[in-house]
């Protein structure tokens, strides 16, 4: 067992820290959030140049041979800076799913340019009624000559407006909530019959509602096998969850650091408020929560490449439960200890709090993953 970072991984960490320090000061972030895209192409180009877009892919796929630990390192720093560039939807979800399930042609056409920074992706899985159930899909794909025709609706699709290609989870067979009979399609972001309603999210990201009205795709648009998309999307989402957990640990570190600084400097009753035991203990609980979050994230990052899908699923759900719990505790505590300042838009604290809250809701909240973990553990 060895839990230390390699020299290359340490360099990557320093590089990511430097990026956040240079490009993601709080006011700079506010400006980026207010741009039309909601992220900066020059930052994306820098990610490509630094090799971050390819770091977690194998050399055969044109990457640099890293894995989930590299993703964890970078995502954690992104969490510290509340970075807005669509790394999660494009690289972790889209790129990851194509790398694991894509054909040779798909990898050449999509993955290679993504690593160069020339293509972005989005994953459209959620529908109005589906809540956190990945199998609750009613968007229909029907055979149309050699290809397929897609009709239906997808919701809260992060990065859809910037995505060159949208990976769509569609029903090709089976009933509404059945895992069998789901197929993934890679659809051009500008396909005919695809319309978008774009909006910002609570945490300053961008997402869209998508309507598919007889969107035609070729047979080569299928990612993986027809009717067997569920396992692919479940695995892809589990990996995204682990990356998201890493982002959350970065958020927690940052929000805890800001709070610690505040209670050391804010004076009431003639002393820094950090002198009051009730706040000291709460701050200690924040620190402990962040430690637990980091531990579960690391464990999940180390298990997410396991051959056994149950091991992977339990690792992702276990970490997500912890992140939900710790994120809520650190977020709420930070706001409380900042007093009125904590609920203003002016300080970064509320922005970390909002991001941590949204992370809990993404891909299933604490309760959802507790149930999922429990079911998996009971079945073993």
């Amino acid at each position, binding site marked *: 067992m060895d839990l230390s970072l390699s020299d290359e991984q340490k360099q990557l960490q320093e590089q990511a820290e430097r990026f956040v320090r240079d490009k993601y000061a709080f006011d700079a972030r506010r400006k980026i959030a207010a741009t039309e895209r909601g992220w900066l192409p020059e930052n994306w180009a820098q990610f490509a140049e630094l090799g971050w877009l390819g770091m977690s892919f194998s050399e055969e796929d044109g990457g640099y041979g890293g894995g989930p630990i590299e993703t964890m390192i970078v995502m954690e720093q992104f969490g510290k800076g509340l970075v807005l560039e669509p790394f999660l939807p494009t690289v972790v979800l889209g790129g990851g799913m194509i790398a694991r399930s894509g054909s040779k042609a798909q990898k050449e056409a999509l993955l290679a340019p993504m690593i160069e920074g020339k293509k972005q992706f989005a994953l459209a899985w*959620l529908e*109005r*009624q589906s*809540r*956190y*159930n990945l199998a609750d899909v009613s968007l229909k794909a029907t055979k149309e000559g050699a290809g397929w025709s897609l009709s239906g609706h997808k*919701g*809260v699709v992060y990065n859809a407006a910037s995505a060159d290609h949208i990976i769509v989870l569609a029903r090709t067979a089976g009933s509404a909530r059945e895992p069998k009979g789901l197929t993934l399609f890679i659809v051009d972001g500008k396909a005919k019959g695809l319309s978008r*309603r774009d*909006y*910002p*999210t*609570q*945490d300053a990201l961008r*997402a869209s*509602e998508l309507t598919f009205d007889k969107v035609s795709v070729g047979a080569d648009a299928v990612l993986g096998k027809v009717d067997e998309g569920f396992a692919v999307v479940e695995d892809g989402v589990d990996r995204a969850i682990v990356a998201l957990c890493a982002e959350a640990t970065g958020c927690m570190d940052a929000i805890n650091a800001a709070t610690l600084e505040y209670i050391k400097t804010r*004076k*009431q*009753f003639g002393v820094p*408020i950090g002198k*009051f035991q*009730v*706040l000291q203990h709460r701050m200690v609980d924040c620190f402990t929560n962040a430690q637990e979050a980091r531990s579960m994230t690391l464990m999940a990052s180390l298990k997410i490449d396991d051959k056994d899908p149950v091991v992977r699923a339990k690792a992702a759900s276990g970490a997500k439960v912890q992140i939900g719990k710790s994120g809520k505790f650190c977020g*709420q505590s930070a*706001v*409380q200890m900042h*007093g*009125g300042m*904590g*609920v*203003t*838009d*002016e300080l970064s604290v*509320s*922005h970390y*709090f*909002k991001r941590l*809250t*949204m992370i809990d*809701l*993404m891909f299933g*909240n604490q*309760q*959802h993953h507790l*149930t999922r973990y429990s079911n998996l553990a009971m079945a073993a």
Partner: protein
Amino acid sequence: MDLALKPEHKAFADEVRDFARKNLSPATREKTFSGKHFDRDDHVVWQQALGRQGWLAYTWPKKYGGPGWGVTERFLFENVLAEEGAPRIIPFGVKMVGPVIYTFGNDEQKERFLPGIRSSEVSWCQGYSEPGAGSDLANLRTRAVREGDHYIVNGQKTWTSYAHWGDWIFCLVRTNTEAKAQEGISFLLIDMKTPGVTVRPIIMLDGAHAVNDVFLDNVKVPVANLIGKENEGWTCAKFLLANERLGIAEVPASKRGVGMLRAIATDSLRDDPSMAEKIADVDLQVQALEMSELRALSTMALGGAPGPEVSTLKVRGSEIQQRIAELAMEAVGEYAAPYQPGMLFHDTNETPVGPDHAPPAAPRYFNMRKTSIYGGSTEIQKNIVSKMVLGL
């Protein structure tokens, strides 16, 4: 002892309900149930209607123009209005400064200020907190120096709710810098139109504008606007805070919240059966809080003042409001993510991205974090209880 209502109380509740249905604008009511923010008119039009009925100052004794209701009437009044979707009565006039004026003010002040408060013709805001005086309120620095018939006031107040709508502000100011912190404070009424008063908005984490900084720069205030004696304002301040802590638990709104929660959670129950029990748990907390509040009110009805134990009501009341907001967001799930400020703050034709109840869910959860901070933070309330009630 009896929990059941007498026939005359049932008739009273019907009268209140009837009044609300006739006088509350459908647009305002709709905002309550859709979680939109109220604008100034929503509040003022409704409060003036209550004022004309003689019900706005419903906690006041008859002597000062109130209806002189007992505990049961007040309880019914608040609950029926909440059920009917009425906006909460902005407390700064009728709940806060009004009672201070009729308790500590002179006859001339009562005549001058109480009618405008009762009718909601005049809007009030509260000048308590300062950048350096939050939890440690007695540390306030806003200075009032007497010059003949006037005080010259300099300083900054903050977290001032509705200062941008306010006609008048009641302020705690320091009139003696030599005395112990609490002893050099006075309670002063300031016309917001006086030269030197500037209001700067503070935008909250959900994008809402309700609170403000208020800057006081050489503001000339007549000595006639001093309530009580100079340097004895802390007595008024404490009296007001005890009243504030009682109403701030927002029990009727939380009861309505539990009902709304059950309605919106139906969709999520299929995937999360634990939601039903989480709602039941907060429902029971609301009942415990309501009964505790009623017990406190009936003690007051027998002539007692609200004691320091009301702090526990404020603590629990804020936790409950936060929990309800949290569960509402949880019930919505990922559709809580779209941010639609237009739907929260403006009258637009925008349609919700997700379910109808989704747009306010997350902003409300964020915003409700303030309830354990304002009106004396949870930490301060617990200090009060441990010291004043438990003698620790």
